[in-house]
């Protein structure tokens, strides 16, 4: 069998091998951002005694998972050449709906048969069912929002930027409407279980980190080893060509916006477990951090490039730098400025590298 990538009898003697830094894994922004991350981590551990302590590492792992699952979702959208500005609002709304559902199911105001009384205290009739239904409710509203985004963009032909900017505002408004501006709290007999599966730990690992790794692995396999994944890339590369060659362009577009909303919703529900509440201003302006993380990790806003590894590395880099600045007692006002510089720097280095000799 011919070696993949080589045509039998056709060795191109004028085609040499690319330099190692322009080849394979190294040929991506994700790769050198990973290298930059390693360098930053080494630098910080030398600069601060407190950086590489178990407590701080776990802290970083917890904090970057705050936005990482949503970043995986938005990366899909960005690969198709779109953008989703509504992710921050969706995080909040999913968390609120899930907390409100849990409260309503627990005080018996809906489906009272889910609650029984044990030793004079209310208890779940079926352990875990209230949690499952609450989380599903949060994900269901995310799904609806994602469908609305996808439909407006793929079927009505609206621009992704404007559509999701509108959705950002609509959904944030709904967060205030349904809570009267107060927010809500996951409570009731199943609340402990809810906290365990959102803010708990598996051994030393935060739950959110476990979910993140699982989802990232699935996403990597789907993107690179299924026809659907290939179509996602094709959309970002040349939408017209994808259409002409029979890729179901509209359907794939709707699907990525739905997945982005679902990822944001799940992320929001997890964050509410960690915070212990879902205030109506939760995850306010997170869309900026989420997009920044995706872009730093190598997702190209022009479409066609990106992946889960880059998304995660982008999130970690943002968080490590933020954490480092805190440890170094730099004013939090500077953090925002620095994040901006890093975004531009990451994209600039990519530009220089691909243009290089």
């Amino acid at each position, binding site marked *: 069998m*011919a070696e993949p990538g080589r*045509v*039998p009898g056709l060795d191109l003697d004028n085609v040499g091998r690319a330099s190692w830094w322009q080849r394979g894994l190294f040929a991506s922004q994700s790769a050198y951002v990973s290298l930059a991350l390693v360098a930053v981590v080494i630098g910080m551990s030398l600069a601060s005694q407190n950086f590489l302590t178990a407590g701080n590492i776990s802290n970083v792992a917890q904090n970057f998972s705050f936005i990482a699952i949503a970043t995986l979702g938005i990366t899909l959208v960005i690969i198709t050449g779109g953008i989703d500005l509504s992710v921050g609002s969706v995080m909040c709304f999913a968390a609120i709906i899930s907390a409100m559902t849990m409260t309503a199911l627990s005080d018996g105001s809906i489906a009272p048969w889910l609650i029984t009384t044990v030793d004079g205290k209310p208890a779940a009739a079926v352990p875990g069912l209230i949690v499952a239904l609450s989380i599903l409710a949060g994900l269901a509203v995310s799904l609806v929002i994602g469908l609305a985004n996808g439909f407006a963009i793929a079927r009505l032909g609206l621009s992704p930027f404007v559509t999701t900017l509108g959705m950002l505002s609509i959904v944030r408004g709904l967060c205030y409407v349904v809570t009267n501006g107060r927010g809500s709290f996951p409570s009731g007999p199943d609340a402990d279980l809810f906290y365990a599966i959102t803010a708990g730990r598996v051994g030393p690992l935060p739950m959110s980190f476990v979910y993140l790794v699982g989802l990232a692995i699935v996403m990597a396999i789907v993107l690179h080893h299924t*026809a659907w994944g290939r179509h996602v*890339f094709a959309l970002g590369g*040349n939408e017209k060509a*994808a259409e002409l*060659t*029979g890729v179901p362009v509209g359907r794939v577009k709707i699907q990525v916006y739905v997945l982005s909303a679902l990822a944001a919703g799940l992320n929001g529900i997890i964050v509410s477990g960690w915070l212990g509440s879902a205030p109506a201003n939760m995850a306010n302006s997170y869309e900026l951090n989420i997009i920044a993380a995706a872009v730093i990790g190598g997702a190209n806003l022009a479409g066609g490039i990106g992946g889960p590894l880059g998304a995660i590395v982008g999130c970690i880099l943002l968080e490590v730098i933020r954490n480092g600045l805190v440890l170094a007692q730099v004013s939090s006002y500077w953090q925002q400025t620095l994040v901006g510089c890093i975004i531009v720097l990451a994209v600039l280095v990519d530009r220089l590298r691909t243009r290089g000799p």
Partner: protein
Amino acid sequence: MALLELSGISKSFGPIKALSDVDFAVGRGEIVGLMGDNGAGKSTMVKLIAGNFPPSAGRIVLDGEAVQFHRPVEAREKGIEVVYQDLAICNNLSAAANVFLGRELKRRVGPFRFLDHRAMTRRAAELFADLKSETRPGDLVHKMSGGQRQAVAIARTRLAAAKIVLMDEPTAAISIRQVSEVLDLIRRLRDQGIAVILISHRMPDVFSVCDRVVVLRRGRKVADKPIAHSTPEEVTALITGAKETA
């Protein structure tokens, strides 16, 4: 009976009449050269046949059956393969991925279906070798030369058993050696009974492979005759309008 028959076809884009009342037919195993100046309506004709958009008026009959395509895939399912003028290629994908775009080869693993990278690479390599093209299946199209990109677009038409292959300037960017490979391929298609519509601005190509030449001028058909009864000079005159009709 003609394999494909267009009658009274018109297509307007707003005020522009890209095609007006064109009749056109191709038979099995026939190679028709479609010529005309820039903007004459050649690509519009290809896109109508390929299902990119419906005609404003007129009928398309394929294999004795009136057809109305709403999407390009529907035309492809009926055996119409196309090399588009802009090639319809994704720069961020490999050559093999582009060849198989929209009809990827898959492998079943339990309930899932995964891409069969190895089979697609192998098949793409064979197709490129057939075209004598120095195109490596694993390379990103982004880095390829114009000719290699064209090979990718042409290789695509060989994936399924086609009835008609439409080629919109398939030789525009390629070397003399590869032009003759593409012309050979067109002849081989004809020998298999496949009809080919070749759009080209290159007189020698049209006169060496085509059985018939059709000339469009400003959206109207001004000539439709066997190549043996015409000359490059006459066709040139028809294209420019120096000669009104033939």
